[in-house]
């Protein structure tokens, strides 16, 4: 796959992936800045407020109208965490030139709109409109509270927060409710001017347009972007393993319990840990899926995620309250099995081909490409999916067991029902 990366200005980079096979083009503009307890809520609120209107299209009605006319172009604001970086901005998607009736060009007007959302927001007396800030602030607080609605997401988030308490990795991408409630239009505007001047800006394009044309469209769209004292990216600090296991239990009115387990990884051999995690709980063929779910019927789901940047593995499962201990023991037993290399050849080869398949098919999805290249840029890495696939192919079984032997239990989170007996 051809990848063209160019620097357009101080701390402004464009990653261009020419492709003709999609019905749409995707364009993304993301600011990358360190995630922090104090700034998280402000940065989470910012793109939502910017999305309310620009100088030229000052309200959602006029913005929607122009997007509809551009054949249903979409511009969504995004708030993501990549390692210990906070990535906020917009992702635009619009139908590719080949399918626009009448041969109208959409890249230029959509780029211009993206630039306006960032550089020329709707303001009054040099500030954001208080009604926009107020409305979106309420939405943000609702979203922070709303994490509770999906108990699986909630339990996963709680585990990370407990495990990485005091580390930026434990900060939620939305920030916390208290800081969100305290944001004023002034404070937000100050955060905005600081961010657009000094944070890294990552631009991304996938579609059929010539890269030169994309570059020109981006230069025009962001010509008004002020730049000064552009900050370096902050790289993610590995999680220091706990000496004693941290245990947290929470009660709520639920019918199904959630068990979350966080593990620290001592090894830095990322491809070995990636494979080890896939074997352990990262696929529908993993030890957790086959044993905890299929064989023992303890859970509807039991899976694990490897946090490459942070050097963690987290396990997430839904269990009956009374099966908590059984599931806990079985999860540790399965980890031990991976560490001791108790497995069939097909398990290892299956895990390897699952990962290779994921890398090989990444180029088939514009959203996955954007997310991948943003993650690479935000964490200061440059490997392509093809290079990562080669690493996975060449990682030996010994390396996997060695790396997995540095994995230790760090934090346990259990969500149980209120009336549940001990």
């Amino acid at each position, binding site marked *: 796959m051809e990848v063209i990366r160019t620097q357009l200005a101080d701390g402004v980079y464009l990653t261009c992936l020419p492709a003709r096979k999609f019905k749409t083009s995707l364009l993304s503009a993301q600011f990358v800045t360190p995630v922090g307890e104090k700034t998280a809520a402000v940065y989470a609120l910012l793109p939502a407020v910017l999305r309310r209107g620009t100088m030229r299209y000052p309200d959602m009605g006029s913005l929607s109208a122009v997007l509809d006319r551009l054949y249903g172009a979409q511009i969504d604001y995004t708030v993501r965490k990549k390692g210990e970086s906070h990535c906020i901005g917009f992702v635009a998607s619009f139908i590719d030139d080949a399918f626009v009736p009448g041969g109208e060009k959409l890249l230029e007007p959509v780029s211009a709109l993206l630039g306006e959302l960032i550089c020329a927001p709707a303001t009054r007396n040099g500030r954001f409109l208080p009604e926009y800030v107020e409305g979106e602030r309420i939405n943000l607080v609702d979203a922070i509270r709303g994490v509770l609605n999906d108990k699986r997401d909630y339990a996963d988030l709680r585990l990370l927060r407990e495990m990485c308490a005091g580390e930026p990795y434990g900060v939620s991408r939305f920030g916390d409710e208290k800081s969100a409630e305290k944001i004023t239009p002034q404070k937000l505007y100050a955060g905005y001017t600081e961010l657009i001047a000094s944070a890294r800006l990552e631009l991304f394009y996938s579609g059929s347009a010539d890269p030169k044309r994309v570059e020109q469209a981006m230069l025009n769209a962001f010509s008004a972007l002020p730049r000064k004292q552009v900050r370096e990216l902050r790289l993610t600090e590995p999680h220091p393993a706990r000496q004693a296991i941290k245990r947290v239990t929470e009660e709520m009115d639920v019918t199904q319990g959630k068990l979350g387990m966080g593990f620290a990884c001592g090894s830095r051999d990322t491809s070995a840990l990636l494979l080890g995690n896939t074997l352990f709980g990262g696929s529908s063929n993993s030890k957790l899926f086959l044993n905890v779910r299929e064989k023992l019927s303890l859970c509807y789901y039991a899976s694990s995620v490897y946090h490459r940047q942070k050097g963690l593995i987290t396990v997430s499962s839904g269990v009956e309250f009374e099966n908590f201990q059984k599931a806990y023991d079985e999860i540790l037993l399965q980890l031990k099995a991976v560490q001791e290399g108790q497995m069939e050849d097909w398990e290892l080869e299956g895990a390897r081909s699952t990962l290779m398949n994921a890398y090989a*098919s990444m180029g088939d999805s514009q959203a996955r490409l954007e997310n991948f290249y943003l993650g690479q840029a935000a964490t200061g890495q440059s490997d392509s999916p093809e290079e990562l696939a080669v690493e996975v192919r060449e990682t030996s079984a010994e390396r996997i067991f060695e790396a997995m032997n540095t994995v230790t239990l760090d934090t346990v989170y259990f969500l149980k029902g209120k009336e549940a007996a001990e």
Partner: protein
Amino acid sequence: MRETFYEKLGESVYRETLPNGLMICVVPKPGYAKKYAFFATRYGGMDVRFQLNGRWLDTPAGIAHYLEHKMFDTKEGNALQELAKNGAEPNAFTSNAMTGYYFDSTDHFEENLKILLSFVSIPYFTEESVAKEQGIIGQEIRMIEDNPDWQIYTRMMQALYQRSTGRISVAGSIESIREITAQTLYDCHKAFYTPSNMILTVVGDVDPVHVVDLARRILPREGGPVIPRDYGEEPAEVAKKETAARMEVSTPQFLTGYKCAPAAEGEDYLRLAVIGDMTCDILLGDSSPLYLRLYDKGLINGSFGGAFEMMPGMAYLYAGGDSKEAKTVAAEIQKEADRLVREGIDPDFYERVRRASFGENLRGLNSFENIAVSLTEGYFHGYDPFRFPQVFDAVASEDILRFLRENITEEHAVLSLILPRT
């Protein structure tokens, strides 16, 4: 084999019906690494009462979904593992009127397709393996019961429909699945998993001739008889105007549903789907006057949205999200529908919604799964989904108004609420 080229979409579809009645659709996608196969039967959660060998059978709620889980068992072990060994990502889902099995893979496609066709057409279960699944599905049911989105939707369906089997939860209940035995599963497989009741769709860079040859070699030579089904006689009146429950949620959620007149099979079915979708956009879509007004007032937030759904003998439009003022919002939707019927649709607004809907449908063709599922639904209901540009051209503002006048009325409306525990 018949090839149809759809110029406005830049897609081709190869179609062939085997002597055993199996329909095969292949959509070539040069340039993509991923290949996707979807094998589906016209059998889902609502097919609980049907005639087999001249006798009417009543089967337990949730049986189609239960069967889906058990189909992965093979004499040799488990098809999930077989597919995962080749790096394929297999899965399945059961909806009200369909059960679909699928995988995507970049390598070993033909081998994987063989596995898919074999395990879905050859049932293998024992009383023990069937009993064991009770635990897993029981946990799945508990998990969805804790999910407010599922609760609010299911309760809305039960308020909208009095007798139609579409009101039954696809997974059934803890009680209903206890009645499922290996014998009932075999009976249902025999009735519905015959080639003449199924369709295979393959999307990706494959040779259509190979796909057809493989299906011919692996699947049974003969199809089965048409199975008469009884979905229940559904009156035009709703079952209940309002339903509410309290759950562990942060903000109140609501869904308002409208019971609509169902469509006949054939291109009318697609036409109604297009009209229903456009009505949603015009009445309450992101750029509709109603949405903008309610959003500005803080009565709704980004979670608000609507959809139009159809299944055999049923059609309904619904909308909702988080709102502290659910009843006000529901009343505003009705008022806006009445206003549109009275005053008509602004021609400029209609034109841009039409453009945006076209773009949205085209965007859907980026997704292999979406292509396969729409070809499958089209086959089951006798229309060609890739004819959507022509159907769009034939729909006019008056059609939307007629739909609003006939369906979006006070008497067809229900309200489902989930409130936080106090």
